[in-house]
């Protein structure tokens, strides 16, 4: 059950500086581009500032020509030519810079995404237990989106705006220190407004975020609990409660956004007021001979062009902060501890030489051995599928022992069954064999080797699992079966499907084996999906098989269909079965009855009935386990 998600909550980054530099690390492969971009941004902002400055000589030249009644256009034309060059350089640089920004930002995003996903695949199951899918997904979607905006727009605009503001101020000083003084007064006023409004807005935004999270949490809870709402006729009550929360959100959201949205017209028109003041003051100065009209023209143009970057810079800054907070969440994922794997025993293809000794070969002998480092060399241990638990104690969190002193042995080819009620620790046992979790006390051996010494990937490759909840992937039926062994030929895929009794229904699908499954195989029935999962396990062809309630959600008729396939799949393998139908486990070599994490009885069916213990009770007491 996912907890209330932080929908759109703009948390502040804990360490903005560190996150920023971490992010900057991703620019390293693009250093030449990044440097070019930085220079280019300076050039293009500079060009627009310089272009405006040229208004002064051009207007003055016109004025002078009017006064002197000259018809010599040379100087006028050359000014225009310079202006044309400056403009051309500005536009061209802007284009190149933006192209480079697209390249760098998309490549950076790709690198971040790949880092995230690659890490995701390496994380231990505990990580997935502790986070909801929504939380993880929002890093892939919301947080990367924010990062994209920041990289492709926010950051470059922030730089351009800052450069422009500084450039404009410098040029103003050059043009007329007196008028600049006037500008600075208004500028200070504008900064004050930005700050004041920003503060007000931030206060209401904080409140709004909280209410928004509340409304979104309520939406989530009620939509997830919709069946209850319907069954208990709570629609009206829920609707009324929602209306109230929604209205609260509207009010605070309106306040928050009013301040943010008013910033733009206030700043824009303050700059117009400034423009007016400058025009009047400048005209007065011109009359008094302290300025010429060209200066006034350029100066006026500058007054118009620095209020917008100022507003932009202040707004971009907020976006910047929330993008950094997103980046921080992304790096949290990237930095999470991966599954530890100190195992050095690997699984290799072998064949026997003339002395009956194992010899490692490249591939496909269908005979496997554990390659175990001994001293300087290696020894080969045949892969048989002998699994033993020695005094295993395990807990998921610090509180409760889920398994207590469990001892068990499964000889190659044996079928071992676990029965017991929910929470007794059945699934945990299988999770320990493939090292989804590691035991805290005791040990598990596989063909005599401690599983902790075995390379995790090789360990899991030697096991195959069919789980209660079947999960399929978007892709064709063939690809889904081949998921068990990527180099399986088409014939082997069909073979496996036949073994699992899936062949006939697959042939009846619109495109047979090439039918594309979507959304976890939503277009198949539960039974059909289960059959595919069994085929997938079959094609992997491992010596050990784990069936965790593999048939529990299948109706009796389909189960009968699968049963034959299952029997064929199980023959010759070590099999661990968890089932709640006692009939399924009856023919096991050993049945272990678990209760509160302890093995309370063991033996085969006949033994256990003879013991007249819990199993006998379960059996005779006619109650099914769940």
């Amino acid at each position, binding site marked *: 059950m996912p*907890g209330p998600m932080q929908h759109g909550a703009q948390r502040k980054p804990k360490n903005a500086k560190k996150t920023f530099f971490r992010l900057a690390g991703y620019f390293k492969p693009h250093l030449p581009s990044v440097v070019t971009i930085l220079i280019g941004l300076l050039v293009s902002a500079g060009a627009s500032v310089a272009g405006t400055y040229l208004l002064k000589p051009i207007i003055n030249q016109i004025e002078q*020509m*009017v006064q002197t009644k000259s018809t010599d256009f040379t100087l006028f034309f050359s000014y*225009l030519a310079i202006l*044309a060059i400056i*403009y051309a350089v*500005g536009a*061209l640089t*802007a*284009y190149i810079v*933006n*192209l480079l920004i*697209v390249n760098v930002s*998309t490549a950076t995003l*790709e690198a971040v*995404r790949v880092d995230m996903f690659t890490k995701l*695949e390496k994380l231990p199951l505990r990580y997935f237990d502790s986070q909801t*899918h929504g939380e993880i997904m929002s890093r892939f979607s919301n947080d990367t989106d924010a990062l994209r905006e920041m990289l492709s727009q926010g950051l470059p605009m922030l730089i351009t705006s800052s450069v422009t503001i500084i450039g404009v101020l410098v040029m103003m000083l050059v043009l007329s220190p007196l008028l600049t003084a006037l500008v600075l007064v208004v500028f200070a006023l504008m900064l004050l407004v930005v700050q004041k409004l920003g503060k007000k807005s931030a206060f209401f935004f904080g409140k709004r975020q909280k209410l928004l999270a509340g409304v979104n*949490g309520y939406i989530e*809870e009620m*939509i*997830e609990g*919709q*069946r209850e709402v*319907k069954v*208990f*006729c709570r629609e009206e009550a829920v*609707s009324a409660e*929602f209306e109230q929360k929604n*209205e609260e959100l*509207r009010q605070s959201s309106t306040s928050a956004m009013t301040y943010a949205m*008013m910033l733009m*017209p206030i700043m824009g*028109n*303050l700059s*117009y*007021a400034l*423009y*007016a003041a400058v*025009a*009047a003051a400048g*005209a*007065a100065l*011109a009359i008094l001979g302290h300025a010429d*009209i060209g200066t006034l*023209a350029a100066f*006026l143009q500058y007054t118009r062009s620095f209020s917008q970057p100022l507003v932009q810079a202040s707004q971009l800054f907020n976006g910047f902060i929330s993008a950094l907070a997103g980046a921080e969440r992304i790096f949290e994922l990237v930095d999470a501890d991966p599954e530890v794997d100190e195992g050095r025993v690997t699984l290799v293809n072998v064949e026997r030489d003339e002395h009956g000794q194992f010899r490692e070969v490249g591939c496909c002998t269908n005979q496997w051995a554990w390659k175990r480092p001994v001293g300087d060399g290696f020894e080969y241990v045949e892969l048989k599928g002998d699994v033993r638990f020695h005094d295993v104690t395990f807990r998921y969190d610090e509180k409760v022992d889920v398994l207590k002193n469990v001892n068990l042995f499964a000889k190659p080819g044996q079928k071992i069954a676990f029965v017991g009620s929910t929470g007794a620790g059945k699934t945990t046992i299988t999770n320990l064999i493939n090292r*989804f979790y590691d035991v805290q006390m005791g040990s598990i051996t596989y063909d005599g080797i401690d599983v902790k010494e075995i390379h995790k990937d090789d360990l899991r490759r030697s096991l195959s699992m069919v*789980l209660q909840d079947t999960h*399929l*992937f978007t892709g064709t039926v063939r690809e889904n079966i081949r998921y068990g062994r*990527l180099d399986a030929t088409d014939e082997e895929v069909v073979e496996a499907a036949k073994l699992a009794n899936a062949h006939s229904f697959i042939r009846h699908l619109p495109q047979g084996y090439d039918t594309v499954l979507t959304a*976890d195989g939503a277009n198949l*029935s539960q039974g059909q999906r289960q059959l595919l999962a069994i085929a997938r396990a079959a094609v992997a062809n491992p010596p050990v098989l784990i069936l965790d309630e593999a048939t529990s959600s299948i109706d*009796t*008729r389909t189960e009968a269909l699968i049963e034959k396939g299952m029997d064929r799949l199980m023959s010759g393998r070590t099999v661990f079965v968890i089932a709640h139908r006692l009939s399924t486990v009856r023919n096991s070599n050993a049945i272990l009855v678990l209760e509160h994490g302890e093995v309370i009885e063991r033996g085969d069916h006949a033994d256990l009935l003879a013991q007249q213990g819990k199993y006998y009770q379960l*059996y005779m*007491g006619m109650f*099914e386990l*769940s």
Partner: protein
Amino acid sequence: MIKKLSAYIGQYKMQALLSPILVLFEVVLEVFIPLLMGKIVDVGIPTRDFGYILRMGGLMVVMAAGALVFGAFCARVAVVASNGMSTNLRKGLFDKIESFSFKNTDHFTTPSLITRLTNDVNNIQNSFQMIIRMLARAPFMLILASVMAYRISPRLSVIIFAAIPALALVMGLLAKLAFPRFEAMLQKYDSMNARTQENLVAIRVVKAFVRGDYESVKFKDSAAALKNAQRKAEKILVLAMPIMQLTMYTSILLVLLVGGKDILAGNLMTGQLMSFISYITQILVSLMMILMVFVTLVLSSASAKRIVEVLDEVPAINDDAAISGLTVENGSIEFCNASFSYASDANNLALSNINLSIRSGETIGIIGGSGSAKSTLVQLIPRLYEVFSGEVLVGGHNVKDYKIEALRASIGMVLQKNVLFSGTIKDNLRWGNPNATDEEITAACKAAQADSFIRSFPDGYDTVLGQGGVNVSGGQKQRLCIARALVKNPRILILDDSTSAVDTATDAAIRAAFTEHHGDATTIIIAQRITSVMEADRIVVLQDGAIDGVGTHEELMNTNEIYRDVYLSQQKGVA
């Protein structure tokens, strides 16, 4: 789509209309400012008239102040309108979803509905705000500034009037080129996220088959494909800015060139030229803004589409044909030739031709394998799903004749997958009957064998549960849910496999309490354990969506093979 969404402006229509009007005033004032500036230069400076300069300057400041007030006011009404609209929309969607039957919800899936109500509504709000402010402002500005420019110099305006359509054409072309590329990009993005989601859901499968590296390689491919698609799309948009700059710069250069000559010829004044250049900036910036708004709108149209899909969905069940005032008189239930299909397809029936008559007060057990449609059958009674053909009668009337609320109020149902809500235990228990007294609640909890464990909590009945009831165990949750159904004091009580996490002794105690305290209610128990239904008045055996047998335990043992099999498998095995 737009019509549909704009209906949600509702009581904020005034603000939504006022916003563009206020913008118009703001723009008018803003547009006059450069003109006055030109006057200062052309009239004030040559005549050395300080008074004139002061007057004009003062007028400009007043205009700016006016524009500021209008602008700020406009921002306020736009915010009120857009927030109001999104609030209405959110409420409309929420209520719509509340009106959905299970079938509608199944169709959209729960997570998708949540995204539509949260992220998508947000997107729409932002776009709407943009429309009423920017999309009004930019065209006004464009037109008014053009008029002003024309009044200064029709000759120079030719340059602008040539530049505007040229720029508009190029921008339109770019947009046309860019949109399909952006769509392609969004598609790549969606499929990448879908794969990631699949990996999260199926992480055990990925790990069990050691496919982490394989998935990473696949992800790298799709991330690279996304990158390329994104580059392809953005490279088009990147052209927009330089083209706009080039147009603006070229226009300014031309205006300076032609204008300079005009000034020398005595047809134009310097101040007018300066005003003219200001207008060029205003015009071209407006054009740029229009383009930007369109890009945003197209990007958010996906959200609009997803929202409208929900709004357009017809609730599969309504009670328009109900007889008002009709209440459930007794707990009798009758299925007459009832069939049901999740796919509304006669060839794909989940239940076929069910005929079953249940007397008021009777206790009925239902047994059958998974997929035999036990849950589906009982969900037809409170009309959570609609029959495909045939009919279901409760209290002697077709369920369609009741107002849904009247029907469901008389039925207590405990679902297989139970949800508790955040709030106290008492709040949760009152969920079905807000007026229940403390005594009634305690009685229901005692019957559901929940009273003792609730009392063992430090805060007892006031213990606060987290979302989804995370702080109680599975068995406790089931008992709370049974108690919650009992508090309704229903005529019909349906338990859908709701004691699976409860041990047999407690299960038996719960059933005993039912008989004692709710003996007159019709009770339907779906169970896996045969002991749970053995003592029922009658037991229904379901197989593949059809009734295989009905009778008492003894009768079924004699006549029904499936029942006997199930019984034997649970008792003596199939030896």
